């Protein structure tokens, strides 16, 4: 959840509009007590960074599937890369959404 240290983390990169939308979806799906704009788009989603656990990841997958119609799969070779960061997750969603 919200580690005190998180709040002091200065994003090393600004969020794009699409990334901000995804960040807002995640914050609301997981009821995180942080501002979507505070999320570092390059920080790892799993474990470190936002400290999400496996159930959180499943909640995010559900929210992504409802909002974007993109179903996440783990037999995808790129899976580790997809959940690397908010940025990589967003790239994956935008790619598959366009198809």
């Amino acid at each position, binding site marked *: 959840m919200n580690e005190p240290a998180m709040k002091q983390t200065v994003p090393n990169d600004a969020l794009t509009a699409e990334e901000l939308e995804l960040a807002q979806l995640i914050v609301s799906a997981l009821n995180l007590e942080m501002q979507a704009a505070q999320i570092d788009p390059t920080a790892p989603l799993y474990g470190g960074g936002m400290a999400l656990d496996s*159930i959180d*990841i*499943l*909640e995010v997958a*559900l929210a992504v599937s409802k909002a974007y119609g993109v179903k996440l*799969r*783990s*037999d995808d070779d790129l899976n580790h890369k997809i959940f690397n960061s908010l940025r990589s997750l967003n790239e994956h969603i935008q790619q598959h959404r366009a198809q």
Partner: protein
Amino acid sequence: MADIPLIRNFDAGAVFAFQNRRPIRVEEFLAEAHRLAGLMPDRQYVVNLCSDRYRFAAGLVAALLRRQVSLLPPNSTDDFLNRLSLDYPGVYCLSDGTAQTSQLHTFLYPQPAGNAVPAASSSHVPEEQVATIGFTSGSTGRPRPHPKSWGALAKSGLAGFERFFQGIYRNMSVLGTVPHQHMYGLESTILMVMQGGLRMHSGRPFFAADICAELEALPRPRGLVTTPVHLRLLLAEANDLPQADFLLCATAPLSPQLAAEAERRFAAPLYEIYGCTEAGQVATRRPAESHQWRPLPGVALFESEEGTWVKGGHIEKEVLLGDVIELCGRNAFLLHGRTADLINIAGKRTSLAHLNFHLNSIEGVRDGTFVMPEEDDGTVTRLTAFVVAPGVASEAIMAALRQRIDAAFLPRPLCFVESLPRNETGKLPRMALDDLVARLAAKAG
């Protein structure tokens, strides 16, 4: 003491497992376990961290053949593994590559040579041989060990088979979303397969789409072994669910709505298992049919001053259950929640589990929990309830609760949240709930 077979109820040449869609015959499994046994280091204790279910099963059998005890830690954190290395000198870790630990000597699962030789040597293990040691957190924080003999484990697997499949289904294929290192997963996805002539899916699919695809790929009859939290997410995300023949749930209470929806959408009966690390599985029920639990074959419950005990069947030593239980005749009981959940307000008694059951039975409530506030300043304590119920009015929930529970237990306040802080097995850690209460208090100023 007798020797107990490693596997039972398999025809010659029957499929034992599906690994990456490849069927593996039961003879191949036994040969693989014997091969592995010949390669494992000469130690007394092993922590089997194989993430592949088939390799885990081969590791378990190999350890039995070598008279090594498999330790089943509740988690594989460095801290816990380090503790194990102090309590069990020489303990090593069997890993298939995914789990990494610097705390223990690691033996990497060796790749099969290719042509597996059918097992010629023994496929029996002495009944009294210690097979596993599970752990619960003791009151002092030091883990308390619970050893189980091979005889007890095999009987437990057989009991599950007899309860669910005997005379109804042969060769059920079982897909699990639960870890096999925990008692529920070990019993329902490993032991029941080995003793009941079933077929295991060697993976542990994660996303809803993965679970659907892997289940669909299994031959029927096929079943899903899961938890309430995985089931809820699966039902919420998937539009089309593959047909199943059997659903099994455990680790946390399942709401009646979720049970009914799962049965309808999978077109399969859903069963729940009640158990604990000390005793293993104790009883089952099909919530669509009855709230009452039926003990597994040979298992009996009895009462004493201290509470309710369980004995018989696969349970080697009488175990005092940590739950409030109401016996209903000789072979059925109702579960009213953890003993520690007992609540006494204004001289009236109930349990949190009982209240949570009613809260979660209300139409439109997706998830909910009552919390007993910690502080006691002499005034009459009131309960807090957190509820996930989008679009439902507070008044509607309070009205429904008033019909079901005593006014003394009505929540003050009833708080709407977007989700509850459930952990990976669907349980609600007390610390996370306390945190929720603290944040609520902070907001109230």
